[in-house]
């Protein structure tokens, strides 16, 4: 039987890799990918707690379904923003996009 902590550790590592990617990479599409990795880490933690904490119902998995919905909405709107940004100025480098910076 694999302990709960192992799943949570994998989830934490995945989340940290996602955070590192969001901070390090400058391509807007790759940043969206790394956000998806972070959401996946959250899903893994939710399912692990849901299955291992002795609950009879599936509350954790229900939240995973909602995370799926939010992730789908986020990636759709995010890619639309990236594409309209690329249409207005030919770059997807987030360092070169500072029109709204004060």
């Amino acid at each position: 039987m694999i302990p709960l902590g192992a799943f949570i550790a994998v989830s934490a590592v995945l989340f940290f890799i996602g955070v590192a990617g969001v901070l390090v990479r400058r391509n807007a599409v790759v940043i969206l990918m790394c956000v998806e990795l972070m959401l996946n880490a959250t899903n893994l933690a939710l399912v692990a707690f849901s299955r291992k904490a002795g609950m009879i119902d599936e509350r954790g998995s229900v939240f995973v379904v909602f995370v799926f919905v939010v992730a789908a909405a986020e990636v759709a709107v995010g890619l639309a923003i990236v594409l309209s940004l690329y249409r207005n100025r030919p770059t997807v480098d987030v360092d070169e996009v500072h029109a709204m910076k004060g």
Partner: protein
Amino acid sequence: MSFDILQSVLFALLTVGIVGAAAGVVLMKRITGSALLMAFAFLCNAGMFLLLGAETVAAFQVLIYVGAITVLILYGVMFTPQQDRRYGLFFQTQTPWAALLVAPIGIFVAFFAFSFADPGKALPGGGDLVPLATSVFGDFAFPFEVASVLLLAAMIGAIVLVKRDEE
């Protein structure tokens, strides 16, 4: 007994797959490779869900993440140019300081993760579809409807954002 060993081996393989693929997403220079490795990480995560006994969530994971979101991201990769710059300038000059700052946090998080006590009680057998559906359409019926409205709003918003002005 042998199933326990098999489970541990599968867990180790999936862990290597998830962490390796996620690291590849961050480190890889070509964003097409990043996108495909991201799909592989999602697939390994679905395997984790299977290992945890959440078959329905694993099926959703494959359908939504490995199917839909990866295709969407690949369209984004297709419509945008590939670039040469890999990393932000901030982390190129301050690597030792960043490592010094991150290492204690990482060690703390690792200890915190392994401190969760395992209740050691397995769930009764059978699929998770019935309890999942009972929860979604019972207690969470209203949030479920709100989520559908959110998806509709996101769809309309995406269409409006990428629509060309016909003038």
